[in-house]
């Protein structure tokens, strides 16, 4: 499975010394191209394109940034890429049609949503052993582990629920009905709220993890944009936890929400069909993948302005970012 040309490592080495140590590396999964684009955050230039299995969507890094996990839905597998060499080193037998996944804070356990089987697969990251399979609602998608590692939440797109798994018991403890087609789930930094985006329902449900009940629903409104186009998908809290970025898909905007007041502060125009994003390691920039314009938009977190967009592969889906550069930083330090 290592179809990476020799030039890749050479290219990485070439770029390595030309870049300051503060640089970060951005990985973007391209659903249509079956590739992952690797971008240098300083130059915003593509430094590599990694060929992966078919239909890559969910993309996350291990907590130590040494491995990159890419869920390849049509390949029925999860590619694991060494972030130092940018080569696929192994595969996790994710079960059929993996879409999104989450790794617990210890880096030991990965939770994978198997869209076709209505299951969450709980797996040992190192060995790839399946620890448990938890049946959830139809078409599971979003996955998140709570900051205290007690719970994992999976959203089921067809059933419209957030399913809460107790991580110690590996069992469901709650099922929370939200608006239609829930996509992503994120805990606030303090773990006191769980936010779930509902794409077709057009809302974010705020859930209290003490009761697992929806306590508030956040809607969207943009003059001149039809309500049905305001569809929240990917969500990320800023590093300080005070604001949330949410990609609004067909509305071609990223909304910024005040975490405390739950009010929308701003709608930032980006490329077409923004889907998922990620913050840079220093938290100063937010990067969002635009599925229909095949690019990645950089948003400044302080000014909340879109700064630039750079081309990536076709149908970019998700973003993962690690501090430092492939090879270089690790090798030098």
């Amino acid at each position, binding site marked *: 499975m290592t179809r990476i040309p020799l030039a890749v490592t050479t290219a990485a080495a070439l770029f390595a010394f030309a870049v300051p140590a503060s640089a970060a590396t951005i990985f973007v999964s391209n659903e249509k191209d079956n590739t992952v684009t690797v971008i240098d955050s300083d130059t915003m230039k593509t430094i590599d394109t990694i060929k992966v299995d078919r239909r890559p969507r969910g993309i996350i890094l291990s907590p130590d940034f040494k491995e990159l996990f890419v869920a390849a839905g049509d390949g029925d597998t999860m590619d694991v890429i060494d972030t130092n060499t940018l080569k696929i080193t192994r595969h996790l037998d994710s079960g059929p049609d993996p879409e999104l996944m989450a790794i617990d804070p210890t880096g030991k356990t990965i939770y994978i949503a198997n869209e076709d089987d209505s299951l969450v697969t709980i797996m040992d990251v190192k060995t790839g052993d399946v620890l448990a399979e938890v049946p959830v609602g139809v078409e599971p998608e979003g996955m998140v582990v709570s900051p205290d590692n007690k719970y994992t939440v999976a959203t089921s*797109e067809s059933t419209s629920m957030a399913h809460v798994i107790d991580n110690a018991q590996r069992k469901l*403890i709650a099922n929370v009905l939200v608006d239609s087609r829930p996509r992503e789930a994120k805990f606030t930094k303090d773990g006191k709220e769980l936010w779930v985006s509902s794409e077709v329902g057009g809302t974010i449900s705020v859930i209290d993890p003490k009761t697992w009940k929806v306590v508030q629903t956040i809607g969207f409104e943009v003059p001149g944009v039809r309500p049905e186009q305001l569809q929240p998908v990917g969500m990320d809290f800023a590093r300080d936890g005070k604001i949330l970025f949410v990609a609004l898909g067909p509305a071609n905007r990223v909304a910024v929400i005040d975490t405390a007041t739950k009010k929308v502060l701003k709608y930032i125009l980006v490329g077409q069909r923004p889907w998922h994003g990620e913050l840079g390691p220093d938290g100063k920039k937010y990067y969002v993948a635009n599925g229909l314009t095949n690019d990645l938009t950089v948003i400044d977190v302080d000014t909340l302005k879109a700064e630039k967009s750079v081309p990536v592969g076709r149908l970019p889906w998700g973003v993962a970012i690690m501090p430092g550069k492939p090879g270089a930083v690790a090798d030098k330090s």
Partner: protein
Amino acid sequence: MNLSITRSTAGTFVRTAVLFLAVALLAGSATAEPTDESTAQTAPPAQSTDTGAASDTAAPAAPNAAPASPEATHPGATPGSIAPSAEEKIKATIPIYYLGKKYDEPLPLSVVEPIITDKGIQGARLAIEDANRVAPFTGYKYNLVEDIIPKKGDIVAKAKEILAKGNAFIVADLEPDDLIAVADLPEAKNSVLLNIRSSAEKLRQEDCRQNVFHIIPDYAMRADALGQYLIWKKWPRWFVLRGDTKGDKDYLAQVERTAKRYGGKIVKESVYPFPPGARNLTSGYQQVQGQIPQATESAPDHDVLWVIDTNDDFGDYLMYRTYSPRPVVGTQGLKAEAWDPAYTESGANRIHSDFKKKVKRAMTERDYTGWLGVRTVTDSVMRSGKTMPPDVKGFMLSKDFNLEGYKRIALNFRPWDHQMRQPIILGGTRVPVSTSPQEGFLHQTYTTDTLGYDKPETKCKFK
């Protein structure tokens, strides 16, 4: 409440039970607590749900009718203890009737297309399976009661038999006359009938009924969906070549309406002159090759040939054989449909793949409307907590009804004629071409209301 159960539904329960048992065992071994009470609870009582006592015995331990609420099961911080189960007690087992008739259906013109005799019902079965799979989370189970009678059977008698048990949810795989006959039964007044089969315009207009909901798009929506695309393409001149059945005339009237609404021009409209014949002739093509140019040569300049052939008698013969080289749209060629086996947008891959695994064939439009009809009921019950047809009907017509159906946006019903609003796929090709409404066709409330009859135009007056 009728609790008879079909073979396929029973199979689902058993499989679900096995699945849950397996998981319960896994979880049990992981926590080294084999005598876990909630383990037993995890497995739905496969046997008892098959009996009339099911819904009563399923929740005997519950002190009141309310389900175990999630916070009650919140484990708090008791390390080492077994987390209580998150499963809902089954609050109700609800029958959904599938009422159909073995009508004669035209054979497909192409031998490549399989002859399918179970369109619709297979989609309904999948929706029931989906709903029952999550019954431990929602608290509601469903029985699909399959009542598909022979061609010469008495549909009214069958409907009376169903309605004798009370108000019912009926997925109607029926032609217009049968549908109206059932809907007009006095005992059907407070039932919910879901039309998954007929596109006939009169069912949404002068023959609309307050107890009938239309899951399948009508001819007006189909004609508008294609018309919008043709106008967007700047192909406004249409040559209509049609059959002469009831369905063909119905569709024709809607194409004429679309032309008026959206600035299309029907340059000529004529009836296909050759009578339908046997299909799949070994040497029929020579004749057809000569006939089609004859049938199409007299039309003035046009951009597309709009074929109306609801019986599938000749439409496919037109492509590549017309006098002028023009694309074919309508009932063949580029078609306007609620569903297409090749449509993969908005997560549709999931349901194609589930359907194929289960049924071993592609999901047709009627399978989709059957699925969507059942889902209309199960989603409404889950969200409203209501189980009786009149209450569920109220929810279906409320602002809270926003159904997810792999069409990108939420689906709901037009209050003036009970037609389901939905984007329409332009497909029939190996890869679908587009989905309407098209960009630029605007509406003050729902862009999907640019397809079909809007409120000011409706002729429907519910009795």
